[in-house]
């Protein structure tokens, strides 16, 4: 059954798959994780603020993102981002944004909802006495959060945040639905051009597996090590 398996096809397309495809995938993963954590932390602070005009919209946003398929959200943003761009820049026409910018906005804003819940759990895991002690020392709210609560919350949540990043890495493959050339997009373009679906999709699966598997093992090791320190 592997008689017709053409390894040469894979070798020939390696530069395209990795320079074009994997670069896009990894860059998107890294930037979306970074922006997602920043926005997610802000959302978490809003949800925990106890001020209803902050908690209500933040909770609504998070719950919306969590109850709708990611694929549907990708479509939403694909059509919305030009209009958001128009609105932000006051231009007369919907803004033409590139595939990367559009994907980045989508993933950052979608993942922010998930990072929000992780950071919220992290913040809530910090004993209330820590906040009281920081306040008793005269710290203002931004200082309490910035120097005492968030550093600890972030540290406690590093393994979970990294695990979510691995999920995000796998999810980037979904940009396939808006025909963007990420790693899977590149593989599928070669596959269809040359009629080599078996080779390309099998190879893509192996690459995703190796990266995700290695990364999740690394997270486990990290988790075990931090568990000992604490």
């Amino acid at each position, binding site marked *: *059954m592997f008689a017709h398996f053409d390894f040469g096809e894979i070798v020939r397309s390696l530069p395209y798959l990795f320079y074009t495809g994997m670069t896009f995938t990894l860059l998107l993963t890294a930037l979306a994780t970074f922006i997602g954590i920043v926005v997610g932390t802000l959302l978490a602070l809003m949800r925990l603020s106890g001020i209803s005009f902050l908690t209500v919209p933040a909770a609504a946003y998070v719950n919306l993102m969590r109850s*709708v*398929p990611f694929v*549907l959200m990708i*479509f939403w943003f694909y059509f919305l981002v030009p209009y958001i761009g128009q609105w932000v820049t006051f231009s007369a026409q919907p803004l033409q944004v590139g595939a990367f910018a559009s994907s980045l906005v989508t993933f950052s804003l979608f993942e922010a909802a998930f990072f929000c819940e992780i950071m919220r759990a992290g913040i809530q895991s910090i004993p209330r006495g820590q906040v009281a002690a920081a306040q008793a020392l005269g710290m203002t709210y931004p200082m309490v959060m910035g120097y005492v609560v968030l550093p600890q919350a972030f540290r406690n949540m590093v393994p979970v945040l990294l695990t979510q990043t691995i*999920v995000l890495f796998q999810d980037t493959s979904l940009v396939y639905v808006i025909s963007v050339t990420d790693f*899977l997009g590149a593989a599928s373009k070669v596959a269809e051009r040359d009629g080599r679906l078996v080779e390309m999709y099998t190879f893509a*699966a192996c690459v995703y*597996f190796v990266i995700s598997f290695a990364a999740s093992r690394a997270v486990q090791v990290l988790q075990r090590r931090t568990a000992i320190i604490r």
Partner: protein
Amino acid sequence: MNYHWNWSIFWELSPDGTHTYFATLMLGTAWTLITSACAFTIALVFGSIVGVLRTTPYSWAMRLGSLYVDVFRNVPLLVQMFLWYFVLPELLPQALGDWLKQLSDASFYTAVVALGLYMSARIAEQIRAGILSLPRGQRLASLALGMTLPQAYAYVLLPMTYRILLPPLTSELLNTIKNSAVALTIGLMELTARARAMQEFSFQVFEAFTAATIIYIVINMLVTFAMRMVERRLTIPGYLGFKAPAVGH
């Protein structure tokens, strides 16, 4: 915004000539629900088996179980769908492969299998965590009463585990419903695909996606509500719930 809203589009005839756009969305909803229900059943069965394997005292079973989980968790769902849909028929003997390719509703069967096995790895993790969260004495007490290991699982450990796991399993069910949208890539005409088709033919992008979004939210609320009723009926007095870490979609 220079976008022309037209909410009456839902009552216009879709290009298939028989259904209104609204009806096509309802059809899509039905496919979403059927696919998710079948996939979740598979996920529960396989997830339970693998989850149990990982808590048995046999090292071969633990290793087999963790291999299964690693494989299905570390490849994106979309890629797994492609493997089942495009690659599997080519690897089978010619006749079988051809039969698979010509199957009507092939994308449905593929989606059910791919989604079911993908979700089963996550459910296996939940089941394992649930079983391990039970006091060790439960297993020992069952064995001390003369039960065999399978009996201990069937009558003592699993009934308790499923009850504890109802909340996390509810969210896995919701995840299954959401993830079923990925099947549009292999041609399943579920809800998101219908919304996408409606957008392509009618150019009413935001109406189509708004409708789909609302339907997903309603499904979400109904499932959550139903599971809460189940939870209430099955609660055991004096036993606290178990909270699994929330990661993923």
